[in-house]
């Protein structure tokens, strides 16, 4: 089944997912950087993490690398970050 996520008033299709549960900084970022290279430009990646820092780090990482930060959802200490590959 195709996964989608509601961010703001938009419904966005998720193309790939990366499991970073239990990993501490900087591993979620290191893995995200590698995973983003595997998906196509324009595709959306969902990163699942338990690292609180990712909420602040991922928007900055996206800005620095020229990718689009779509948003973050959180529930019970779990964070799901959505971003779109642009470069």
């Amino acid at each position: 089944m195709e996964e989608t996520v509601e961010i703001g008033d938009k419904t966005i299709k998720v193309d790939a997912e990366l499991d970073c549960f239990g990993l501490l900084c900087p591993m979620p970022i290191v893995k995200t950087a590698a995973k983003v290279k595997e998906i196509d430009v324009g595709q959306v990646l969902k990163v699942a993490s338990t690292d609180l820092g990712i909420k602040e780090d991922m928007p900055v990482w996206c800005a620095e690398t020229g990718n689009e930060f779509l948003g973050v959802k959180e529930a019970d200490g779990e964070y799901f970050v959505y971003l779109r590959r642009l470069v």
Partner: protein
Amino acid sequence: MSDSKAKEPVAAAMNEIQKNAGTKKKVTIVVFSGELDKVLAAFNIATGAASMGMECTLFFTFWGLNVLKKNDAKNTASGLMKRMLGRMNKGGSQRLPLSKFHMRGLGTWMMKKLMSQHKMPTVDEMISLSKELGVQFMACTITMGIMGIEKEALRPEIDKFVGVVTYLAEAQESSVNLFI
């Protein structure tokens, strides 16, 4: 003054920013300490920077060179003092002590246990991860001379054997420069 004139300096500044956007940002880190906690901090910053698309150079000097000593390196130093130093300062990625609470190895053992429970990479894993991400390793030849460390005693991951000038040239181009 017309509106378009007022905007000119802003436009020029924006052009400058856009020009710089294409050039790679650089990080240089001097790894002076040979302690597990400090070394892991250096590797965390290095791998994080590389993942952000920054160029990163680690300059290993003095006790920091212990990180790059082979774990099974022979003590080939000549002269009493260098031999003694080599014996007391064995080095090797798996032998690094904590800077606090080493407690004859017990504290370090416990810290390594905790780190592995949290799936933190070991120093060895950090070395290979850094190399995969293109982090450059430089070894300080001055330290090698003083401590009697031969090239053969060091790991193959080292890109360059250099002195302070090469490090400074790299640091000059870096926007982030740390001494750990």
